[in-house]
């Protein structure tokens, strides 16, 4: 009841202030009258009675104010009055308001943008139901010297049957598939999955059905599920396609379902989802190129999952014993161990480092922006000094004044925040559509309530931060000084210029930190670009991929090779092409690995030697790539067709095993102990196959056609699994790389040999190379922009402080000039002050950069976080700029006319 009364009375007063005031005035007057009567009754004359009554009451106005002052509506009225006043004041100085608004909008916008990226990529849970239960299953293999290997079919079968901790297990891989009977042949990305994967993700198809266990059985009808995008683009969203057959990789498959448009899995675009099939009784322990995924039972932990997998590993090995021969003890020897991780962690990878560095960067820019605006506010408050002093003298509480000053700053920051938020929306849209930095989970980045809340909190925080500085300074009543001198006494100027100086020092220090950061990134970028990746002139190298369906060539490798050579010859004849080669994997993209035996090095029976990268190459590959042949020669076509046992090795492998490239020639290696030895005929310069910033792996180069005895296929650790087609990449060296006409010529060359082969993934090596550096480039660009902004703000800050100091001290300058000081002295005085500020700021900045740059270590390459060149160059640049920024206003001091300043007051 009382709450209702509070609200209603307050509202009534707010609506009609005058009526309420009159009410109170009447009551007070009545009190006075009654008191007068009382004194008259006691025998005083009417006049003295009235006087006595007045004395007893006290000041009528005071009582009136006291009574009216009660009630929450007063706070509301005060607040709205302050608000109107603040808005009016801001409108009067549009320049100041616009500058601050712009600065804040940029700072808050940048911070909020990076936060939304962090939110979408690192913080948001995966878009599946109960995502915390999803884990990725992989294994460690310390015995094979591999930190991580994937899943194999036998383990999948064991886990899905025996696990106590997993609700559901599935295995998957990606590949490409060609569709040939729907018009022009096309090559599409495909997802190969075991039947439980869609249920693990709790994905319901929008049409048709999901996979069932029967789909995984090799005896059943072949099926395929389409993605929504492919369904819409190819079939126009026609529901009658369900049940229709299409030719996928030259095998007929029935379309059984369509995925919902929101389906996304591990950042892989897939147009088709195809069941992974194998005979459960026939699985091997060899092919580890698949990936595992599972859903934990409710309440199960990661540790329990790892323990369970460790328990099941020997069960798998016992249940699916290897046929006698090499690698029989592979499991035990590899010392396979469990590596179960949350799915989200695997998807995100190490992008967190970059993102947090960027967050720190924009945070620093925001702080600098705040310092800037705080300085501007200090100047404004200085102008109001007299007004504030008078108000304090009249009895305004300190809290009231602080509140008023804060209101102005918070208004500014909130307005800046709104513009910043709009900026963020724009930036996010550009970021997501351009896919510039190659971030994982880029489609999960979107403005959501958390982002808006962050923008709001940041605006309020910054408003309070830079608002408190002038508010606390000027709410203090230093009355006597201010009211007498008109506020221009010397000691005061010192005090307030100290604060401004301090703010500028902070700005300069922060700017230097950012400049050092961007300098380090610049050097990292340069270092990376100067790395000899193992190929030359990537802008002149065109790559493309072709998949020959095994059915077409009846699983005969030699027939496939003849087809490939024919295509190669056709391409050679194209105008402008200087060299063509064929390989199985393109550099800087996923590579295939295998263990390699060295003649002369003995390995215990059953054990396996270290894993090396292998590439199958054709003659001409080295010429096309521009890789240096350090010793020996290339393979020849004759050798390839005759399956002559030859091989090439990379330079680092030659050095590791035989200490000299030349010494490697003639040595022999092989893949399996019962193969014949292959002779090394050439040594190739290192290739940074894993990425420019990683060390070059040791690589073995085989000819395209090889004899493998004993096993149906080599050990495959990583790389594409044995699939329904033979995929190869063509490397073409031509100045016409990247042009449309070249593409048309290439298509014609392929079609002339086999019209049903789609040409896929046409790209220049340069774009592949740029993509691999994309994250570093992105970080560098952002840091450079931030550094430039910070530099500008810092320099402007110094200029502002010196300029203001000169304008404040014109009287002093005038006196000095009148007393005979040389002009240069005065200029030097201000210049020294500016240099002092820059110098102290730079000193703090260097220290801070020294400490903070260690955090950047993860994103740097071959640059020390305390690289003296960067530090030196940046501090020098900043101090010089500071000197210039001080010099310009200092010159104005020299132009002061002493006669005028002494006269004016």
């Amino acid at each position, binding site marked *: 009841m*009382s709450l209702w009364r509070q609200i209603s*009375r307050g509202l009534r007063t707010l609506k009609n202030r005058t009526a309420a005031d009159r009410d109170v005035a009447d*009551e007070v007057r*009545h*009190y006075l009258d009654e008191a007068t009567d009382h004194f008259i009754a006691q025998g005083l004359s009417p006049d003295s009675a009235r006087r006595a009554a007045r004395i007893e009451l*006290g000041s009528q106005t005071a009582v009136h104010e*006291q009574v009216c002052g009660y009630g929450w509506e007063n706070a509301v009225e005060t607040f709205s009055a302050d608000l109107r006043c603040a808005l009016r004041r801001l409108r009067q100085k549009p320049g100041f308001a616009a500058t601050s608004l712009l600065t804040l909008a940029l700072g808050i916008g940048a911070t909020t943008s990076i936060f939304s990226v962090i939110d979408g990529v690192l913080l948001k849970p995966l878009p599946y139901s109960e995502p915390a239960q999803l884990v990725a299953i992989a294994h460690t293999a310390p015995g094979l010297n591999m930190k991580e290997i994937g899943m194999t079919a036998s383990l999948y079968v064991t886990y899905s049957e025996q696990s106590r901790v997993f609700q559901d297990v599935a295995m998957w891989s990606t590949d490409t598939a060609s569709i040939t009977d729907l018009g022009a042949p096309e090559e599409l990305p495909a997802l190969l999955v075991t039947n439980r994967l869609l249920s693990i993700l709790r994905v319901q198809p929008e049409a048709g059905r999901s996979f069932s266990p029967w789909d995984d059985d090799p005896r059943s009808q072949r099926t395929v599920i389409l993605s929504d995008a492919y369904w819409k683009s190819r079939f126009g969203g026609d529901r009658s396609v369900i049940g229709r057959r299409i030719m996928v990789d030259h095998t007929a498959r029935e379309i059984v379902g369509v995925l919902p448009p929101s389906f996304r899995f591990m950042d892989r675009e897939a147009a088709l989802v195809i069941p992974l099939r194998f005979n459960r009784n026939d699985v091997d322990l060899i092919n580890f190129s698949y990936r595992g995924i599972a859903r934990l039972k409710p309440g199960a932990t990661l540790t329990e999952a790892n323990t369970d997998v460790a328990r099941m590993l020997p069960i798998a090995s016992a249940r699916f014993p290897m046929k006698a021969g090499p690698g029989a003890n592979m499991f035990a020897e590899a010392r396979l161990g469990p590596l179960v991780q949350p799915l989200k962690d695997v998807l995100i990878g190490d992008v967190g480092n970059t993102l947090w560095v960027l967050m720190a960067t924009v945070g620093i820019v925001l702080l600098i922006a705040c310092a800037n605006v705080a300085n501007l506010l200090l100047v404004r408050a200085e102008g109001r000094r007299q007004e504030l002093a008078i108000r304090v003298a009249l009895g305004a509480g300190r809290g009231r004044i602080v509140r008023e000053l804060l209101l102005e700053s918070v208004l500014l920051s909130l307005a800046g925040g709104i513009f910043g938020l709009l900026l963020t929306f724009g930036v996010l849209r550009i970021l997501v559509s351009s896919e510039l930095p190659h971030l994982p989970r880029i489609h999960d980045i979107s403005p959501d309530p958390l982002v808006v809340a962050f923008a709001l909190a940041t605006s309020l925080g910054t408003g309070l931060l830079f608002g408190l500085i002038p508010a606390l300074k000027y709410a203090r009543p230093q009355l006597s000084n201010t009211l007498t001198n008109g506020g221009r006494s010397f000691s005061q100027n010192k005090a307030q210029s100290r604060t401004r100086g301090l703010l500028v020092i902070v700005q300069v220090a922060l700017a230097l930190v950012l400049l050092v950061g961007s300098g380090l990134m610049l050097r990292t970028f340069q270092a990376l670009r100067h790395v000899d990746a193992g190929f030359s002139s990537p802008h002149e190298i065109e790559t493309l991929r072709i998949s020959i369906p095994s059915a077409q060539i009846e699983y005969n490798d030699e027939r496939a090779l003849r087809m490939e050579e024919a295509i190669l010859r056709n391409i050679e004849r194209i105008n402008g092409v200087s060299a063509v080669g064929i390989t199985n994997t393109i550099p800087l993209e996923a590579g295939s690995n295998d263990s390699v035996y060295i003649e002369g090095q003995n390995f215990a029976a059953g054990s396996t030697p270290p894993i090396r990268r292998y590439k199958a190459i054709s003659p001409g590959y080295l010429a096309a790539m521009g890789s240096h042949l350090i010793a020996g020669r290339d393979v020849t076509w004759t050798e390839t067709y005759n399956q002559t046992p030859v091989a090439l090795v990379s330079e680092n492998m030659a050095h590791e095993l035989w200490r000299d490239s030349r010494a490697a020639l003639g040595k022999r290696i092989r893949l399996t102990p019962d193969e014949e030895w292959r002779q090394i005929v050439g040594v190739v310069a290192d290739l940074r196959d894993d990425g420019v910033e990683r060390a070059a792996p040791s690589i073995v180069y085989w000819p395209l056609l090889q004899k493998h005895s004993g096993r149906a296929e080599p050990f495959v650790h990583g790389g594409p699994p044995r699939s329904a087609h033979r995929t190869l990449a063509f490397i073409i060296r031509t100045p016409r790389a990247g042009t449309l006409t070249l593409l048309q010529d290439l298509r014609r060359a392929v079609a002339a040999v086999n019209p049903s082969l789609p040409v896929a993934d046409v790209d220049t090596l340069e774009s592949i190379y740029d993509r691999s550096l994309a994250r570093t480039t992105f970080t560098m660009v952002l840091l450079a922009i931030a550094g430039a902004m910070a530099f500008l703000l810092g320099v402007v800050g110094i200029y502002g402080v010196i300029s203001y100091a000169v304008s404040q001290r014109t009287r002093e300058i005038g006196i000095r000039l009148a007393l005979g000081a040389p002009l240069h002295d005065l200029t030097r005085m201000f210049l020294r002050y500016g240099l002092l500020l820059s110098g102290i700021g730079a000193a703090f900045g260097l220290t801070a950069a020294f400490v903070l740059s260690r955090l950047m270590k993860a994103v740097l390459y071959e640059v020390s976080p305390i690289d003296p060149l960067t530090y030196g160059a940046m501090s020098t640049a900043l101090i010089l700029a500071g000197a210039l920024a001080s010099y310009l206003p200092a010159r104005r001091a020299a132009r002061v006319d002493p006669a005028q300043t002494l006269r004016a007051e």
Partner: protein
Amino acid sequence: MNKPTLDKTPTMDQPNTDVIQGTLDMLILKTLSLEPMHGFGIARRIEQISRGVFKVNPGSLLTAFQRLERLGWLDSEWSQTDNSRRAKFYSLTRLGKKHLDVQTAQWNRRASAIARLLKAVS
């Protein structure tokens, strides 16, 4: 520096003859429990009955009326006094009566406790 209390909620930090807020509320409620009265009348009655010990500050008194009215313990209405003056009369509500009883009981408990303490010490 002693600032005049223009924009602060009223406190009664003046020397000893004045009353503290909670006690003032109780005295007002008690006075009004007998009959509805206007502001001056209440002040007089409190002075009279306490035989001059409690002298009420008019500002605090009138503010207290605002507060108690908003709390729902008092009702007010404008009507005529005996000498045909227009005055604001306050009366006790049922809620106010309940609160008064609670406060009185509390006060009595405290007073007797203090009395016992003083007796014991001396």
